[in-house]
């Protein structure tokens, strides 16, 4: 079963859907400009699931908000780049046209459904609105479609629940409603930003399973932004690791976990305790020293260098380009001046424990 799944996940063919080119976002704040996104470029294909991993300040959320025209301007501004979605540059579109794409061909789900849903409107009103605006459906048709959508996201007794308000739903159900809204107009791209972070682990498991099923049914591409490496491992075709507004590593999911090439990726993987390992003979957790950089004063060169035990003098002076990692899977890109596999091989045996080959 898992073998079948991994092959159809690994294929991920399709034409380019989203092409992000050298995106730069700056926030003009008191005490200096915050360089939140510093030249991010990648391509997402139709039907592909991209998992983006990063911590606060990595630019993972800001860059998608910027491409959807959702950052407050000012203080935010797009300092450069293009975001081509089906050939159109989203950054160059007037707000009126962008609004037609948002919630239409691009659906999105954010972390906190309680603040994304309008507490004063019934669920039906909130699902119907985009259907009428984007698809021009009649009130009756939109309501019928809203009911189908609640069925689709497995909310029991959908017909009766349409006229309830968000507070009458549990946290997991509200997130399902958000997904229903995100999928309402059959988007080609669904963006989920920490969509399960606030949920209990069993509810998260249900939502992840649901999204997987919907993807099989509807075939949309997904950008799944999270800090949870476990969720990313299960649903992604491609994984992208971001830090300080840059992509430090990107590649096929199996390659990223089995053969990480950037020290930050390796540090994140090593710092996770193993659920299957008992207390006997355990060691201190591997810890990444230091704190994420202050993006008002980003360090010169590779932004992770100050926290990286493998950093070379060149890392501290010059930002490495994101390029094919030598000897790695095709499409496995890394930004690093050092050769991580060689450095790891030189460490004491067992140092790579916890990174199981795939």
């Amino acid at each position: 079963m898992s073998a079948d799944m991994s092959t159809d996940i690994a294929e991920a063919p399709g034409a380019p859907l989203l092409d992000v080119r050298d995106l730069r976002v700056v926030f003009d704040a008191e005490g200096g400009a915050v360089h939140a996104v510093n030249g991010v470029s990648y391509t997402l294909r139709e039907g592909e699931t991209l998992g983006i991993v990063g911590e606060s300040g990595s630019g993972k959320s800001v860059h998608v908000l910027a491409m959807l025209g959702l950052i407050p301007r000012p203080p935010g501004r797009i300092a450069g780049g293009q975001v081509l979605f089906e050939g159109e540059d989203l950054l160059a579109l007037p707000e009126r046209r962008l609004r037609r794409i948002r919630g239409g061909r691009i659906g999105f789900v954010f972390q906190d459904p309680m603040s994304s849903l309008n507490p004063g409107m019934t669920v039906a009103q909130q699902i119907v609105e985009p259907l009428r605006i984007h698809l021009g459906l009649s009130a009756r048709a939109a309501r019928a479609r809203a009911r189908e959508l609640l069925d689709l996201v497995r909310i029991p007794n959908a017909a009766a629940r349409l006229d309830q308000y968000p507070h009458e739903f549990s946290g997991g159900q509200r997130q399902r409603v958000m997904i229903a809204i995100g999928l309402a107009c059959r988007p080609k791209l669904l963006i989920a930003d920490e969509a399960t972070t606030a949920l209990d682990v069993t509810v998260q498991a249900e939502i992840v399973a649901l999204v997987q099923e919907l993807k099989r049914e509807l075939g949309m591409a997904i950008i799944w932004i999270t800090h949870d490496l476990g969720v990313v491992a299960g649903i992604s075709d491609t994984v992208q690791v971001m830090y300080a507004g840059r992509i430090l590593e990107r590649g096929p999911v199996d390659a990223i976990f089995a053969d990480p090439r950037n020290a930050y990726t390796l540090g994140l993987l090593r710092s996770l305790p193993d659920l299957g390992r008992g207390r006997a003979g355990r060691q201190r957790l591997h810890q990444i020293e230091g704190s994420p950089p202050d993006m008002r004063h980003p360090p010169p060169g590779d932004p992770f260098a100050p926290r990286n035990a493998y950093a070379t003098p060149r890392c501290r002076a010059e930002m490495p380009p994101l390029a094919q990692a030598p000897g790695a899977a095709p499409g496995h890109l890394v930004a690093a001046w050092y050769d991580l596999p060689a450095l790891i091989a030189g460490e004491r045996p067992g140092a790579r424990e916890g990174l199981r080959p795939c």
Partner: protein
Amino acid sequence: MLMSTAPAPAAPILSVRNLSKHYPLRAWWGGKASVFRAVEDVSFEIRPGETLGLVGESGSGKSTIGRAVTMLNPPTSGTVAFEGTDLAGLGAREMRRMRARIQTVFQDPYAALNPRMSAGDYVAEVFRLHRPAMGRGERRAAVAGLFERVGLDPRFMGRYPHQFSGGQRQRICIARAIALKPSFIVADEPIAALDVSIQAQVVNLLQDLQEELGLSYLFISHDLRMVRYLCHRVAVLWRGRIVELADSDQLYEDPRHPYTRRLLSAVPLPDPVAERARLAVAGAESFGEGRPGDLVAVAPGHWVADG
């Protein structure tokens, strides 16, 4: 035997018996007043130097128990004995003395800190309250020592909370928590608000402090991976009751209650092959919807609710 990895039995530092916390619900006209049973008849012990993990989903009563055993929000019924003294029977003055021995570290360090007080003053405050005889220089030296102990540069004592990162702020809170040499700390989701790269730092610090100071922890968390790593024993809460309590290895390797199994099987694995296989077979194990029953022993030290 099964319990070979458990710490040697010793008199418990904390003994919780039949703890319940109820909140009255407003009655409608003509209706009967009822109560919300946030925590119902919970009993457990924590031994010196031991970490007991408390896991469960939001609303299961984890934090309510944490606040009840520290008397921040005293229980409706039941006893909480700390080092042999029943906390509910203490007067305000004795309780204040006891607070030096029982500390709490919360999820959001920024909310815990006073934005107008420098980090050094915030830590020094506990000395002013509990050690009024301490001189200024002595206090300053003690705070500097605490800063070093939790991995903060003492030169940062004059800085304000907004000048620190999230992980550093949690270190400040930990410095204050250990200032009076407590023997027991309730850590309520202490890493949940921290970045992944910072979580391991804080967990390692908590562990180092446990070894050095002989601390006992009640570690409240929804991070089941970290709980297995850090905790000697684990209690699983569901709907305000403990449904399973066991040695950590035993609980994770041989979970007996259907809810524990459901919880553990929902944890995503940071390994694509294993995680895809897990997702492919994932299905919720169904179990009764009523309140869980009383705990019965299924093995030495392994307790499971029947029903």
